[in-house]
């Protein structure tokens, strides 16, 4: 039996919206799992149901062997870091962190020790007497995490905690969260709509769309073998190129371009996906196109072009000299493509 088990979880809001649909998921002790999906896909709702902040319409959640559906959030032994941190504005940093412990009837001395230890760990021990309004965004973030850590809960829940930080700080905190989680080994669930965060943080990623789990897997699995067209499009930056095509005897026809897939598939209505960095640009390439737009990113550049009326992009080293308007030759290997059946949306 897994540490945290979700069985056929469904959430229907009073107004009839189905936010989460028949979701089942097993999370092991000490794992770092990331829920990722576009906004409104139900990932936060799922997290809030685990926390007990949202009623469960149907299904069962069990934590450490106990079914927690009916258990009060305060008794579930979970800690959550909120998007806007939800620090208690009238309490000092110390009291923000100590509040949960006080409510659990822990002795003053022990609270002192615990809060000081965690504050040191997070390097906020200089700030303990300040009020949240006197802290910077990054410091607030740390306090919010400290408040969660100090309780030593069974599970950490993170609800898009990095989205209010600027890009540099976000990267820094991301690393720190990862490091802390490794260090403490506490099971964690992290909700984000940012696929980079998901890829870098998660031991496993759960891709959610429209309240349904599209795929569960390690970042590598999800990236290299997306189960559905949605996952293929959502994970990876820049986005995977998706071409509508017809496949006859293992040959994909995109406009007048032919790609040999080295198999004998036949699909009338298919989608061929290829990652922008899997398009090999070389002078010996079989296909040629005009670069409509070139985006220079420093070490890389992204070229936007068209095959027939379908747009695509490819990513290549910026050492190659190529400008907008130039014609370039490229090659697509049949082994690096992803095929999806358009009628089912799933991988072939």
């Amino acid at each position, binding site marked *: 039996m897994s540490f945290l088990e979700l069985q056929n979880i469904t959430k229907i809001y009073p107004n009839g919206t189905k936010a989460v649909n028949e979701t089942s998921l097993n999370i092991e002790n000490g794992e770092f799992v990331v829920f990722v999906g576009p906004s409104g896909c139900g990932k936060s709702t799922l997290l809030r149901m685990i*926390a*007990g*902040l949202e009623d469960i319409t149907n299904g069962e959640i069990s934590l450490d062997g106990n079914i927690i559906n009916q258990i*009060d*959030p*305060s*008794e579930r032994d*979970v*800690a*959550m870091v*909120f*998007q*806007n941190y*939800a*620090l*208690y*504005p*009238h309490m000092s940093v110390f009291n923000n962190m100590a*509040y*949960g412990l006080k*409510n*659990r009837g822990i002795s003053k001395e022990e609270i002192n020790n615990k809060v000081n230890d965690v504050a040191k760990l997070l390097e906020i021990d200089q700030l303990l007497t300040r009020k949240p309004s006197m802290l910077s965004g990054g410091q607030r973030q740390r306090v919010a995490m400290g*408040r969660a850590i100090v*309780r030593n809960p069974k599970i950490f829940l993170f609800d898009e905690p990095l989205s209010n930080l600027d890009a540099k700080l976000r990267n820094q905190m991301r690393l720190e969260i990862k490091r802390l989680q490794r260090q403490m080994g506490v099971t964690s669930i992290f909700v984000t709509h940012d696929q980079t965060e998901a890829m870098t943080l998660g031991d496993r990623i759960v891709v959610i769309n429209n309240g349904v789990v599209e795929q569960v897997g390690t970042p590598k699995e999800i990236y290299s073998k997306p189960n559905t067209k949605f996952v293929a499009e959502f994970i990876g930056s820049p986005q995977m190129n998706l071409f509508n095509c017809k496949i006859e005897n293992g040959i994909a026809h995109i406009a007048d371009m032919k790609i040999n897939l080295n198999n004998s598939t036949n699909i009338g209505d298919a989608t061929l996906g290829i990652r922008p960095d899997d398009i090999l640009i070389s002078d010996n390439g079989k296909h040629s196109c005009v670069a409509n737009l070139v985006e220079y990113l420093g070490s890389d550049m992204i070229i936007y072009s068209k095959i027939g009326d379908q747009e695509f992009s490819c990513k290549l080293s910026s050492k190659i000299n190529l400008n907008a308007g130039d014609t370039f030759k490229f090659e697509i290997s049949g082994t690096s493509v992803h095929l999806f059946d358009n009628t089912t949306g799933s991988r072939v």
Partner: protein
Amino acid sequence: MTKYISLTINHFILSIGLLVMIVPIWIIFASSTHSSLFINTNGLQFFLGDNFIENYSRVLFKQSGFFNEITALKMFFNSFVMATGIATLSVVTSLMAAYGLVYFKVKYATVIFWLIFITLLVPLELRIMPSYIVMSKLNLVNTFAGLILPISASAIATFFFRQFYKSIPDELLEAAKLDGTNSLRFFIDFLIPLSKTMIAAVFIFMFVFGYNQYLWPLIMTTSEQYWTVVMGLKTMYGSISDRFAFVIMSMIPPVIIIIFLQKLFIQGIFQNK
């Protein structure tokens, strides 16, 4: 240059406003330090006289009223008890009412709120007879409870607190829940400290409201022992300087309250968080 001109004009206008408000009070105060005889012969005074201590101590300790049963000092005490009682109870009841309306999933909470709100349309004067009958059946005539209770729930204060609670993000409650708080603790540990400034503002409003009550104490009290300052102002049959001294003193309690709570009061009125 134009900056100085506009600054001068601004200050000129402000000074006029200030004078309009201050001068009458000053004249009353200055006159109250002269003997009645002097004022009767020479009219209102702009400069201080030398009867200050004499006049004020006479007014404070003189037995007055129809039956000479009450001193001004006792009136101040009565007014203070009444105003503090009304202010405190209003704060408590409206805090709790707003808490109930916003944080508990009360069915028809909005309807209930508007029912509370439309009581604003029914002033005390309109319900003064039924209120009196209720109080007299409860044997509360001539008691502080009788003076305080019927006017100690405030719709407008409930409205203020409700709006404020609605502006507090839900995450705060959720974070507190996960930290193991219960409804009562959330109220005490979070809502009360967060609404500190609002409480100060409401307290001042209600204190002044209670202090200024005239008709209700007039009806609720038959014993002079329960007369309040505002009633006393009407029935102060002393000499002219005594009356002036009493008027000046009657302004002091609200002013003191405002001085003490001013900082919180201003934050409370202008806070937009």
